[in-house]
């Protein structure tokens, strides 16, 4: 095992994506992860589209770990779980408030056995407030946090981000931070602790820039379709082949370059309405029409080649098949296929490159209970 967290031991008693996602990431970073599976399995196990009898979301969230099935209502199994809690440096749970306690793996139970544990709870909406006891799925977090309210067609209603799970994985990434912060704290002070990372809070943090704009003006122009609140133009433009390209101009110099690249009239370059980013934002729709009247004269792929030659920030709008075929994605092997017991899983490669602590390739997901013997041996050797 390599990676910067080599030697760190993580116990996963989570469910669905948020907790398991965090322990998978910790595994990628080199930690040794053991997941306790309940006797009834996990809610993601039968989430469509099933892959040879297993939900792909489950396979994805549980890569790179060992798996043991335990019935925590059984005394002997609970004892095994407690031994694992003694083994672990970090424990991660994301059940509803009170559930881990009921299972006999609450912070007090675990801290009695292992006072130095870093115990991370991720209660969906939080452990306080009117939604404290409500189960949280990504889509509910999206709509109760305002995330969904600010995107959609200009002048229309806010719509859900249909790639449901973004806020789940965003929370997983925050849990990873909290876990390592806890490790560093313990390394310095020899003290463990319980840390809460709320799904709802991480969704608010992800909106930090949009919320800052709202706090400044007490109003919002959103949704704005593809357009940015910060720059103009920064939006999608229709091309001859009915495909769209994204173009972003962040300053006046880039604006002149774009005018030249689009061979726009000198009149437009001199037009006061477009003379600064602020003016371009104010006149966004007339600006967009001006640009689009040109982009509609050529196909999307041609414009991207042409504009990139002029060092204009631009790009296509991809579906998965386009991503997989993209020359950079292929050259850098950004999309990989991981062997698992249920077939090859489509996945992205590690988001980090470390110069001294190389990360191991991602290991395929183990079957529920697959590592029972090995895990029991680990406990015995404690």
């Amino acid at each position, binding site marked *: 095992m390599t990676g910067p967290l080599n030697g760190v031991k993580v116990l996963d008693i989570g469910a669905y994506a948020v907790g398991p996602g965090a322990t998978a990431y910790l595994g990628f970073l080199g930690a040794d992860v053991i997941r306790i599976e309940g006797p009834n399995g996990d809610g993601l196990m039968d989430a469509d589209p099933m892959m040879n009898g297993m939900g792909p979301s489950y396979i*994805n969230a549980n890569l790179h770990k060992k798996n043991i099935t335990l019935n925590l209502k059984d005394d002997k199994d609970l004892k095994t779980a407690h031994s694992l809690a003694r083994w672990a440096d970090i424990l991660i749970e994301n059940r509803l408030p009170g559930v881990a306690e009921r299972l006999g793996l609450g912070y007090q139970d675990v801290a009695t056995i292992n006072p130095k544990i870093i115990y991370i709870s991720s209660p969906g909406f939080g452990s306080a407030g009117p939604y404290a006891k409500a189960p949280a799925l990504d889509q509910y977090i999206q709509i109760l946090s305002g995330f969904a309210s600010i995107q959609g067609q200009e002048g229309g209603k806010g719509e859900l981000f249909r790639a449901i799970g973004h806020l789940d994985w965003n929370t997983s990434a925050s849990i990873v931070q909290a876990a390592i912060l806890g490790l560093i704290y313990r390394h310095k002070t020899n003290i463990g602790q319980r840390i809460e990372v709320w799904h709802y809070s991480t969704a608010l943090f992800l909106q930090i820039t949009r919320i800052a704009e709202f706090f400044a003006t007490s109003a919002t122009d959103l949704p704005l379709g593809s357009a940015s609140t910060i720059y103009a133009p920064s939006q999608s433009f229709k091309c001859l082949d009915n495909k769209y390209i994204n173009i972003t101009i962040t300053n006046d110099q880039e604006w002149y370059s774009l005018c030249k690249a689009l061979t726009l009239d000198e009149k437009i370059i001199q037009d006061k309405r477009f003379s600064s980013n602020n003016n371009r934002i104010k006149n966004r729709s007339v600006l967009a029409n001006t640009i689009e009247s040109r982009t509609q004269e050529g196909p999307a792929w041609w414009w991207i080649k042409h504009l990139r030659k002029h060092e204009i920030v631009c790009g296509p709008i991809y579906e998965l098949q386009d991503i997989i075929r993209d020359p950079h994605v292929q050259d850098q092997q950004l999309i990989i296929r991981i062997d698992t017991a249920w077939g090859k899983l489509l996945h992205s490669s590690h*988001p980090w490159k470390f110069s001294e602590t190389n990360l191991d390739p991602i290991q395929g997901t183990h079957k529920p209970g697959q590592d029972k013997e090995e895990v029991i041996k680990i406990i015995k050797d404690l």
Partner: protein
Amino acid sequence: MPVLAQTSVIELTDGIAGSCCGLQLADAGADVIKVESMLGDSLRELGPKIKGHSSLFMSLNRDKRSIALDYHKPEGYKILEQLLRQADVIVEDLGISNAGILGCTYEKFRQINSKLIHCSITPYGTSGPYKDLPASELEIQGLAGSMWFLGKIGESPVRVASDIASGAAASLSFSGILAALYWQMLSGEGQKIEVSLFGSLLSLYSYWMADFSDPDNYSGGAMDPYCNPEFGYQTKDKPILFGFFGRREDRKEPWQQFCKSVGLAELLEDPFIAEHGAGMVGVGQDAQDMKPVLETALVNWSSDDLMKITWEIGGAGAPFLGYEDLFGENLHPQVEATEIVGDIPHPEGGYYRAILSPWGNHGELGIDTHNAPPRLGQDTNDILVKLGYKESYIKTLKENGIVK
């Protein structure tokens, strides 16, 4: 004491991703010095202002210090070098070519300070066909597939309004730095970390890629890119989403109970709907097909009442809330409960509202008092004096346009 109380960070970044990473390091207690160009971070001029200061800049740069210097010039670069000698971490987003020209490479940095952790944030990575290609939030979203899951086929595209590509890179660079810091504590060695906006967003997106592992087997499901936009179920007031939890067989009873409670009992006369109806609420094409039928009853109820009914039978849901509902004069009680909204000292006096790091208030990790975001070069003098520069020389540097 906050976790990173003795950690010193140099932030050589412009815009959102790098500053957001630095912000979280600052929230964990690190001493973050923002090294700005003589013109300052471009974000200082962008977005709506509060008392003359950019709300965007302020949201991402509180609790940091600022030194403005021209590191293109040898005297300026020397100051950067001296700062790095004492630093634990540098976060930069100069881009691979630019960093090479400026001498901001890990090879160089390592000679200055072998314990240094050098995190480089780029749009697409430091090798491959796009290594020198510039990009902003929108282009990364377009390339990583985000826009595929919004809007409607045949209409103009829609982006995710939050800065999720920058957010992903900030989050993963922060966790990468923390992991490297932990390793540095054990080994005494620094290292280079590379994170890209594109790679970060793709990394989070493994969850939906998983669903396409076997395209022959793809059947839509909850995350359907080809579905119509989802606006929720109409009620008497705000639209809602709701559903039932657990394995398939666990969801049947609450679904039937729900139908009876809201006045849709006759639906259950259809044995297929009685058996599989729980899978036809919420999100996805099946749910959208079934929606008009459910709405005939749901419009008679308020969203609050529907939440109560749903929770009582073990289901879950939420209403669609907007920014006015959440962040108006009175914060929504659930936002309030997170304690994530802080009142931060404004550079011109008084306070402004900002979002704090999500793990800060629920453990012994973060800082609990906050400092105003710095003016450009606000700490140049202090920092140079601490480095041993004489006031007279600092004056010369200022006159020569090396520092501000």
